[in-house]
């Protein structure tokens, strides 16, 4: 029980990284990227390919993958998403569903259907563990991942609150036209946000490849988990995303005690319950909830006058 709780919390770091990219996209760019999970899988399979086919070391492969994913995010925004956004709310959904199908089947055609894992390439790290008092073993890899996740989200939070780019990004997410009146080029900022979001998806994919198996068709389920973490965590402040990820991880981990099937189902049910609860609150229903995601990324305790 306690063991599952700890595992769930550590799993939450992975979900939070996965969710942060998604929430950044619909916060800043007002874009729901239904191919987010597939991009995570692309990151995972690219890193695997670099390691297995080119023989690169794992750390170098991770760095190259993350840079490549960031570049891909920039290009996607520049050549696909910007155009899709001009077409109202329907076109982005249609475009990214098509993108997802293209990515999944394209990866299947290129990489094959075998499940793959980076686990074999990280030596003893994949099984080494620490013993806690009370006879509980905690895997080293999950702990390192959780710490990385917290550091990455923390760095992102500092970027958003303390840097000129972060301010420009928050301004753009709140009112792109007003941001342009302040000398901010909203399109440049949105491309930057897309680069960060896709790089975060790539990192999440690498996490998944280290701790488990990845197939070209893992993306849709990752997308669902990302959404669940975003919604459960509240209106997506980065801290909320982390909390949402941890809750999802814990729920799944405790559900797995009963049966593997219940694990994922429990996550879905908690998500639907939270969504229902939030809908029952008039404010959320009226204001379109998630669209305020990024506003709340910068949600400070002393700014709570507004109901998000």
């Amino acid at each position: 029980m306690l063991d599952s709780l700890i595992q769930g919390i550590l799993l939450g770091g992975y979900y939070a990284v996965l969710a942060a990219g998604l929430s950044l996209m619909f916060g800043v760019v007002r874009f729901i990227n239904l191919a987010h999970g597939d991009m995570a899988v692309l990151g995972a399979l690219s890193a695997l390919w670099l390691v297995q086919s080119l023989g690169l070391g794992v750390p170098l492969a991770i760095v190259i993958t993350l840079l490549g994913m960031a570049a891909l995010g920039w290009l996607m925004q520049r050549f696909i998403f910007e155009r899709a956004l001009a077409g109202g709310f329907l076109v982005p959904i249609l475009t990214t569903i098509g993108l997802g199908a293209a990515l999944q089947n394209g990866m299947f055609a290129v990489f094959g259907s075998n499940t793959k894992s980076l686990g074999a390439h990280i030596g003893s790290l994949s099984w080494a563990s620490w013993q806690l008092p009370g006879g509980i073993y905690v895997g080293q890899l999950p702990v390192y991942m959780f710490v990385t996740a917290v550091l990455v989200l923390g760095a992102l939070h500092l970027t958003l609150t303390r840097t000129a780019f972060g301010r420009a990004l928050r301004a753009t997410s709140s009112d792109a036209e007003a941001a342009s009146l302040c000398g901010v080029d909203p399109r440049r900022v949105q491309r930057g946000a897309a680069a960060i979001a896709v790089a975060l998806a790539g990192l999440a994919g690498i996490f998944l490849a280290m701790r488990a198996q990845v197939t070209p068709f893992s993306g849709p389920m990752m997308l669902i988990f990302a959404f669940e973490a975003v919604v459960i965590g509240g209106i997506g402040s980065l801290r909320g995303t982390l909390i949402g990820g941890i809750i999802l991880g814990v729920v799944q981990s405790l559900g797995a005690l009963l049966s593997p099937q219940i694990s994922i189902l429990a996550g879905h049910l908690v998500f639907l319950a939270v969504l229902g609860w939030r809908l029952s609150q008039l404010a959320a229903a009226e204001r379109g909830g998630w669209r305020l995601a990024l506003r709340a990324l910068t949600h400070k305790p002393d700014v709570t006058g507004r109901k998000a």
Partner: protein
Amino acid sequence: MTPAQVLPMNTKDRRLVGLACLAVLGLATLPWLGSALIVDKLIYLFILVMFAVMWNLLAGYAGLVSVGQQAFIGLGGYALIRLVDAGLPPFVMIFVAAIGAGAVAWLLSWFVLRMKAGEFAIATWVIAETIRSLVMFDPIVQGETGTSLLALNAYDPDLRRLVLYLLALASMVVMVWGTWVLLQRRIGAESQAIRDDEDAAASVGISTFRVKQRIYVIAAIGCALAGALWLASAITFQPRTSFGVQWSVFMLFMVLVGGIGTFIGPILGALVFFGLQELFGDFGAWYLAGVGGLAIFFALYLPNGIVGLWLDRGKDEPLSLRKRLRM
């Protein structure tokens, strides 16, 4: 409810409807002429048309972009499995199963229809996944393994094919014709008003929830009926296939390529999709990746699909409801 005022059809449209009636009559006699393979393929085509028409009703006319209609496709199949397992006659139960899925949709509508566009898309998908997980707990389904509609094997294969073919043809005709009638009534104009601007629609006194609920339930029944027919022709029920998100991708592709929010678009889209599958289906994953790529192309450059191309050239949209509807 007062019916919306409808202007008479123009000559071209009347000719088209006449042709369609002839085509249906021709199709109805086909099983006695064509091979079993063709009949099986046509059953699948009819099912695709039903999916496309229902998704278009939902997304194109009521603005409800669902990524979770596979919930009802799967539920239709599952309900059929359960009902037939209880010893009830399979062919009749196809329709009972569809009504049952409609009842589930009615219950769900109170929850999902309160959501905004993006939330609705994802939540419907998660609900489909949830229902799939729940169905997998049923001992008959045996988790991932699935089960078969063994009762149908008791029938002579030719007779079974013939009955399914005629049922699928009739269901398709009823759905297409029913959509036509529905959209000409007041609810057709109201749903389009909601799609275009929900707040404005509400402010002129349209009960937006009622309209959306009716469309949502109808689309669920339609998808469940097509899903049950599909199961009856495929025999095997596997939760991962029946509840798979690929159905949503297919529906979206057909409607997008044909022309979303037009009457004839989804039918054209289903024909195109069917044709592509026949021509390139052997390429497997590359074919499906190409379908995804084509969807992106249409969404970005031809968001009004084939019918949009027609309109751009200054031709009239065939069987258009746009010009003929007056509220």
